[in-house]
């Protein structure tokens, strides 16, 4: 992003940061303490990730950085230099929805939708990291504790994870 021509004060110390977001490389010159969330939403126009709280509590801003679910509101962009980032926009593969996304729709895992982008990103990580393994309901709830939902009551979301994990496990050739 270029500094606005209307802004008379040149930025004092911009950092050069390279990100790969949803498969596309970006070479940015940014304030180093700018939050990853703002870079994604404002600079790159990826408004799928939401800001619910800005303090790490709600998980609406969850994205995958180098494969791990993290809160984009708590990461200075400088710490993502060289990182590979996947946002909700990049989750679908080859234009088709993943099993977890379809399961959310089938199970009614979304109502108002504000938590959904972050919830689906965390849930996708949970499924991917447990293909072929046992994942009891209590563990699903524990892993999703950093994603707050005020609408669904979580039951439908847990169902979606269970169903998607079964499907992915079968697709990977494992027993369920």
């Amino acid at each position: 992003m270029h500094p606005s021509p209307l802004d008379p004060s040149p930025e004092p110390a911009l950092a050069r940061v390279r990100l790969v977001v949803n498969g596309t490389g970006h070479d940015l010159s940014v304030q180093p303490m700018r939050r990853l969330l703002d870079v994604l939403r404002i600079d790159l126009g990826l408004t799928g990730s939401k800001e619910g709280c800005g303090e790490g509590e709600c998980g609406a801003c969850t994205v995958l950085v180098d494969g791990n679910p993290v809160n984009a509101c708590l990461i200075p962009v400088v710490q993502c230099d060289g990182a590979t980032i996947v946002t909700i926009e990049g989750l679908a593969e080859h234009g088709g929805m993943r099993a977890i996304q379809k399961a959310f729709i089938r199970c009614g895992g979304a109502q108002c939708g504000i938590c959904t982008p972050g919830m689906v990103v965390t849930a996708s990580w949970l499924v991917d990291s447990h293909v072929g393994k046992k994942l009891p309901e209590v563990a699903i709830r524990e892993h999703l504790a950093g994603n707050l939902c005020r609408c669904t009551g979580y039951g439908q979301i847990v169902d979606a994870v269970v169903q998607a994990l079964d499907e992915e496990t079968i697709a990977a050739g494992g027993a369920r």
Partner: protein
Amino acid sequence: MTPTAPLVIRPANLADALAQLHSAATDSPLRPMAGCTDVLVDLHFGKPAAPAYLDLWALRSELGGLRWTDAGLEIGALCTYADAVSNPRFRAELPMLTQASTLVGATQIQFRGTYAGNIENGSPAADAAPALMALDARLRLLSQSGAREVALSDYYTGYRQTQRRADEIIGSVVVPGHRLDCQGQWMRKVGTRAFQAITKVGLCGVFGWQQGRLHDVRVVAVSMAAVLKRCPAVETYLCGKRADEVDAAALRAAQAVDLRPIDDVRSTADYRAEVFARLVEQAVRETAA
């Protein structure tokens, strides 16, 4: 809300980081940043930014991970909770610290938060720092002039005040060998929710038994004072006792020597004192069994 634009120093390696800390130490000390789960929350709530930060996150290959040595287990400054609990040996030898690690925030926080950051942040309601204190952990502080070790139980000098000098970072946290796989590791966090909750009252301890009597006792009180606190009077009282010899009134009297609980938004002093005493009783009961 976007934090204002402070400078961020991006060291090439550990030696460079220590050199930069050293040259800035007297005039305008650099603030280290690791997983930033405390640093960015402070900025979000409008606390003034440091003039300049020192980014340690990129030094994970030098300062991360777990290392078993003759001295015990060395936890690198950049080791996250998720890094540690993914290691089967860590989980087997340090069940209490594993439990504490999985209670810090939730998944997303555990992929970013570090043990060193938890310690340096200095919250009296922290989860990992008291578990480490109960395990007799020591800190290796690094500066350009070398390394020094400080016992974690001596590290805090006041509310969110530590012994760290402006030219130092925590390089690692060392759990001594005698605490690896030691019996009687026990913790409980009392909060308002099972996960992603701040501790109202907590206890981390070691309750080691020999021939039916407590002989190796560590008790650390969480969220009971301005700092995380070991409880020497409670430890001395319990040492040598059988479980059925622990007297409710005498235990509370010993506890009153160690702790004068705080009254704050999360709980009253009376509630804290009574719940803490019951946590000690529960720990004795459960580890004796």
